[in-house]
């Protein structure tokens, strides 16, 4: 068996046993939500080569939608999550259809601009609660039966969804569709010359990514019980880029590791170094860009790849 297989088995065991060995379930759930978010973002940046600077919009839109559906309309959580994802997919379709007509920095700027518009909509709307946010969202009963208010039950629900997303992204990337996405990333004119309708592939990748980002936002609302402006703020879009780059863009496990590092730093340093958290995370980002551009997992893969070649 390959080394990575062992790593995956060990991590899976750790994830399943986490609540039993004393890891704080709410913290791990938060980490998994952001890991889903980063994996979804990676599908777009890592495998299609599109840098969206407004992914917080889909994360936040779904977060608010799920919160509203559960709190005000008393929907069950699984349907509310689907509702959140549907809205994220729909807004992804609209934004994507406009943005993919441009490339590079212009693409990034269009996604950023539209995300900022959504931020101001969330600030103004009554049902989002403006700067106070949508608060006190109950977790509800899964399928109307299983109460999620217990942290351990909620944890396994989140974990199951995370594993599903992780495997789904693997499947997408390894499918013929994923191969075409990579071809577009490597050389777009060539993909066009081979007869592929590049725009449609890009749009589909964009919508898939926003839908999964929406799943992350919806889950986050259920875990914590609120959706606020920080979910749609541009700094959240920046954070997901940071997570993906730090872990390793275009690797399966990189975004998960990146999300883990960023969330762990933000949570654990908040009470130890106070105001220095942002400086430390910024410094790590600079070091990452200067010294290891492939990210942690990317560098590790390159290292073991070289070893294999020489051996």
């Amino acid at each position, binding site marked *: 068996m390959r080394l990575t297989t062992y790593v995956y088995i060990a991590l899976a065991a750790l994830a399943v046993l986490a609540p039993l*060995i*004393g*890891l*704080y379930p*709410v*913290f791990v759930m*938060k980490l998994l939500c952001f890991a889903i978010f980063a994996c979804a973002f990676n599908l777009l940046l890592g495998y299609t080569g599109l840098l969206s600077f407004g992914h917080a919009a889909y994360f936040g839109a779904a977060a608010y939608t799920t919160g509203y559906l559960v709190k005000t309309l008393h929907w069950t959580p699984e349907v509310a999550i689907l509702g959140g994802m549907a809205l994220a997919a729909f807004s992804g379709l609209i934004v994507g259809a406009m943005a993919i007509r441009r490339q590079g920095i212009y693409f990034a700027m269009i996604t950023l601009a539209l995300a900022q518009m959504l931020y*101001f909509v969330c*600030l*103004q709307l*009554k049902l989002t*609660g*403006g*700067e*106070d*946010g949508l*608060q*006190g969202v109950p977790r509800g009963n899964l399928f109307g039966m299983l109460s999620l208010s217990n942290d351990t039950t909620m944890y396994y629900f989140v974990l199951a969804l995370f594993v599903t997303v992780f495997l789904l992204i693997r499947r997408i990337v390894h499918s013929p569709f994923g191969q075409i996405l990579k071809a577009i990333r490597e050389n777009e004119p060539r993909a066009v010359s081979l007869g592929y309708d590049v725009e449609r592939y890009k749009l589909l990748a964009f919508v898939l990514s926003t839908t999964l980002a929406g799943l992350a936002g919806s889950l*986050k609302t259920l875990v*914590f*019980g*609120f959706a*606020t*402006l*920080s*979910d749609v703020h541009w700094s959240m879009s920046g954070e997901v880029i940071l997570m993906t780059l730090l872990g390793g863009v275009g690797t399966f496990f990189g975004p998960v590791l990146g999300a883990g590092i960023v969330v*762990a730093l*933000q*949570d*654990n340093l*908040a*009470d130890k170094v*106070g*105001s*220095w*958290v*942002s400086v430390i995370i910024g410094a790590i980002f600079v070091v990452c860009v200067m010294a290891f551009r492939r990210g942690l997992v990317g560098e590790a893969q390159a290292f073991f790849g070289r070893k294999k070649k020489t051996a």
Partner: protein
Amino acid sequence: MKLKSLNVALALALCISAASTQAQVSGNTVKIGFITDMSGLYADLDGPGGVEAIRMAIGDFGGTVLGKKVELVSADHQNKTDIASSLAREWIDQQGVDMLIGGTNSGAGIAMAKVAGEKKRPYFNIGAGSTRLTNEDCTPYTVHYAYDTAALANVTGAAVVKGGGKSWFFLTADYAFGISLEQDTAAVVKASGGTVVGAVRHPLSASDFSSFMLQAQASKAQVLGLANAGGDMINAVKAAREFGVTKTMKLAGLLVFITDVHSLGLQATQGMQLTDGWYWDSSPETRAWSKRFFEKMKKMPSMAQAADYSATTTYLNAVKAAGTDDPDKVMVQLKKAKINDMFAKGGYIREDGRMIHEMYLLEVKKPEESKYPWDYYKVVAKVPGEQAFQPLSKSTCPFIKK
């Protein structure tokens, strides 16, 4: 992470076994948790100064209560609601925090109130102004200690009209906070016999206020009410000065902190009226405490920092009087105690969690009137808490029986 959690679990197990012999204080220490913005736009107002104020309160109390050590943990929520909420949860679940103090940012403040309510821990909110904390999002464990936007609107509206500012024009930040501030104030102005001649809404984080200033000038109103905060308020004040609006109109800031006046300078802010819950230079007692604070932080305390001190002392007094840190018994004690210290005279915590105390209408001094550093305000009026805050009968808090 794993190792740390194991340690925490072990420590908790030890604490539990220790607690069985000492029943009245959980975990053998009284632990206070403080979560606020330490690095962002509200850091000046509360932040590290707030931590220092709480430390001073613990020190002045003797460092112990009921013979047990008082500990403080503090954190920077970086204006992210999820960090505030998950830290509060983790502290209560794993570190045995007995009381939480929430700082600035109302989104984070309400999220922490929900966690504290669910876990049954006393929660003092200082820095956030949202009235939702004692209305639809209230819990039996929340104490909203320093101020809220309803009080700011009430005091500024009523007192300015009383002082002759009959006709008003509003400059409002175009989102829920600004609009509710404008509407609350306008209602008070009308009820006190004044008139509102108009209002103009500006987008959040606007940089150019010139057209708004011309509209304000053309209205011929006596008072320009600034229903905005932070950077918007600062830019609006600067623009008002540059356009000479301040020559014909009086500025009334609806949410202005002493740190804003300090950064704007007296030249720009002179003559502006504003409401605050506390001013460092209002009595010998406040001056004495503020001098001590100044020695540590090199700046004078804001209302929020003074309230951090006062809230900690009030809580420790309640623990002492109740003879336990049991949350329900402490809350009963808190709601019957009178608060008399350098922050509040005769203050009390109402059933819905609102702390009622005197509010001040202040006027910014002219540069030549300011005799020493931080000598910024004249006290125009002192408004009793019962008039300043929203009456209990109007509270939408679900557990208040009517």
